[in-house]
């Protein structure tokens, strides 16, 4: 029975090859456009580290100018980064499970192969906890330990891309690399890692790639390298390198992992205590005002998702709607143009149900063809969007999105087919026989 219906449906699809192609391509396009936009949006607005985003906190303290608030837009908001002094003082706490102060800088890298010109690359200066805190995946080796933080020992971690470029992708743990005038030993190589958005430091490009090299933070002081990211200041300071470290300028980011409610409360108390201590010493002349924002609150505060991106998603969904309306229209026309044939079948004893399901089978076939082509196009669409916006995603289309896509196109085709199929199955057998 179903086989017979399938054969009939295939025959009907083949009878109008051009229109069938239009239908299939229409639904495929609708699926592709809406899927690639929704998945792109889902990724940029989604939680970059779902399993622990509510345990990772971005720390802010109000060390700012007593006369002016940090932000004109929101006077209650503390500075968005810390001073070097405060960040180092917070590192003394043993409350967080992991914590790290960090910032971005640039250094000259001398490739191991002398014939290649040196390049200037971004470096993330951080503590060893950085890697455990953000669950950074390693291909070779691992992070440095906390003893290496203090030394500091001359060790670095490379990103997968940098390792490909400098060492042809082989295990480079133990090899040396010269940065500026200092030799460093490679201690770990990351697996491809593209936190999107770059939530640990959205100050300097929310969709920038992670840095190519990670280095124990105290090397900056040894090598007298200043940060390259955003710096804000209010109080003049001595122009020397140490002067900047001792200044009230804010340029250091700070993250802490607090696993339990109790840890969170103790840490908040610790921050208040620290602010009071500093106030007694003549700093922190503004009211107590620290912030502990978890990953999602932090991203929301930064407004990483642009309203125009939401507009794009609505436009993409409307695109799918137009494709569906288009499909209903063509199916309706097609089915109704076969009224006489259906009349004959009805007269020969086919039930309404049979006619209805015959036509739905045809819709399902179109839906399947549409979803297969649509998914292929979605993959192309997502990679096009990635290339266009210079974003790299570790997992652009996951299984959920795939099954949603297949489900959606089948559903679209079936829903689109219901009305036309219902119209055609209600044809009275007599009418069309009479007029012939």
């Amino acid at each position, binding site marked *: 029975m179903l086989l017979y219906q399938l054969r009939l449906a295939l025959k009907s699809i083949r009878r109008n090859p051009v*229109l069938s192609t*239009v*239908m299939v391509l*229409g639904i495929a*396009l609708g699926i592709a*456009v809406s899927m690639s936009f929704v998945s792109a949006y889902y990724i940029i607005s989604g939680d970059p580290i779902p399993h622990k985003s509510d345990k990772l906190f971005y720390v802010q303290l109000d060390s700012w100018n007593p006369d*002016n608030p940090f932000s*004109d837009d929101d006077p209650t908001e503390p500075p968005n980064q810390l001073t070097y002094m405060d960040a180092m003082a917070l590192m003394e706490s043993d409350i967080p499970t992991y914590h790290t102060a960090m910032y971005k800088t640039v250094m000259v890298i*001398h490739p191991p192969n002398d014939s290649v*010109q*040196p*390049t*200037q690359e971004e470096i993330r200066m951080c503590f060893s906890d950085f890697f455990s805190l953000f669950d950074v995946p390693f291909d070779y080796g691992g992070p440095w330990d906390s003893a290496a933080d203090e030394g500091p020992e001359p060790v670095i971690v490379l990103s997968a891309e940098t390792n490909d470029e400098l060492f042809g992708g082989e295990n480079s743990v133990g090899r040396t690399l010269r940065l*500026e*005038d200092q030799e460093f030993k490679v201690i770990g190589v990351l697996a491809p890692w593209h936190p999107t958005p770059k939530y640990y430091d959205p100050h300097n490009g929310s969709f920038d790639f992670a840095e190519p090299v990670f280095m124990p933070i105290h090397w900056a002081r040894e090598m007298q*390298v200043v940060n390259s990211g955003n*710096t804000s*200041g*209010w*109080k*003049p*300071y*001595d*122009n*020397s390198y140490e002067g900047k470290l001792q200044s009230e*300028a804010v340029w250091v980011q700070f993250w802490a992992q607090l696993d339990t409610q109790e840890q969170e409360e103790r840490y908040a108390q610790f921050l208040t205590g620290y602010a009071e201590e500093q106030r007694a010493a003549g700093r922190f002349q503004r009211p107590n005002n620290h912030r502990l924002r978890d990953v999602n609150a932090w991203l929301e505060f930064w407004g990483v998702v*642009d*309203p*125009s*991106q*939401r*507009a*794009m998603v*609505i*436009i*993409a969904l*409307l*695109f799918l*709607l*137009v*494709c569906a*309306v*288009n499909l*209903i*229209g*063509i199916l*309706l*026309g*097609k089915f*109704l*143009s076969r*009224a006489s044939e259906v009349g004959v079948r009805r007269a020969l004893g086919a039930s309404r149900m049979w006619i209805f399901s015959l036509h739905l089978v045809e819709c399902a076939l179109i839906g399947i063809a549409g979803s297969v082509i649509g998914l292929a196009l979605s993959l192309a669409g997502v990679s096009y*969007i990635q290339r*266009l*916006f*210079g974003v790299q995603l570790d997992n652009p289309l996951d299984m959920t999105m795939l099954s949603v896509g297949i489900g959606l196109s089948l559903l679209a085709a079936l829903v689109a087919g219901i*009305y036309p199929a219902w*119209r055609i199955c209600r044809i009275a057998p007599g009418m069309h026989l009479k*007029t*012939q």
Partner: protein
Amino acid sequence: MEFGPIFRSLFQNRARTWLIVLEIGLTLAVVVNCLVLIRDQQAQIGRSTGMDEQNLIAVTSVPFDPAFQEEGYSVASYEQDLREIEAMPGVRSVTSILQFPLSGSGSATGRRIAGSEDQRTTVPYFLMGPDAIDTLGVELVQGRTFEPGDFPDLHDDDEEQAEEEEDTDHVTNILVTQYTADKFFPDGDALGKQIEGNNNNVDTIVGIVRLMHNSWPLGPDPENLMIHPSHPVNNRQTRYLVRTEPGRFDEVFVALEPKLREVEEGRIVTVRSLSEMKGNYYSSFTSMNQLLGWISVLLVAVTGLGIVGMTSFSVTQRTRHIGTRRALGATRGDIVRWFLVENWIMTGIGIAVGVALTFGLNYMLASMGGVPQIQPPILLVSILVMWLMGLLAALIPALRGSLVQPVIATRSV
């Protein structure tokens, strides 16, 4: 032409009519809103930056040779770079600069009218060397450009220049844009007036530039800018801005890196055009416009093909009807006209519905903060395109329908 029967036949087949109307309406709404967005973003990219951007080249020099750490070496190399670049054929002028305009990365600091108790407002600034105005190609409307006496002594103070706050108590002669001048002195008498930052560093406005963009053209006030005379050189990085003679951009662009390496080997030299930096800064706009453009084209294509499909089935369905009319004396032209008029009516209703949907969608998107208002010319052009598209799409099946022979009327299927 008989409109009555056409109308009646249209509404006999209500579902099909309304589907076409809805499809045209939705398509118009989406396309117009996409075009409005594209147009708005293109206008922002295309507006004047005040500079001779086509002929500007941004050069960054990052030394790695330890020699640069020696006292006075960076400064000597800086002075030599400026001399050598200036002497290159095709170069009109060159200056040094701390952070590049239109790049998305720059510096800003607080300023208020000198001696006042106002809150300081943020003013983006550039630290630039001699020849700044001629190199940028901006127009000076009042006052003068920098003179040698405005600059700090290069050999006296060759350690790191202040990047954040200038901490000395001296008065600096600066240039500001008309926008910034008017912001502090709305009466138009900014020339010669003073503004101050923290710790009593005071700036005297000695010249006003008509228009120039700062490092953040997409920020709230792109023309807010002051230019401080400086020699932004240090032992980690030095940047130059080069303006070429018209038509000699390419020649200078390729010659710059080899030239600078010839002057001093131990450094990384990066050469980029200002247009490229601007393109990068606006790249999310350009990318989004591409996507919106594709969506619009695909949508019109899907709708057009849909109309072809729906009309051809309605022609097939009415084969006998056409045959009868032909037998009764209707010409081929009559038949074509019949289908076209039918389509006009549907497209017309679709467009009317579409205009309402366009404004509805615009209102919704605007309330989310993403879309500017609809400009009538865009709406009119889109309506025209939709109408022509509807007509063309109906023409193909209509012509096929007109080929039906009158004899069909008397033959049974």
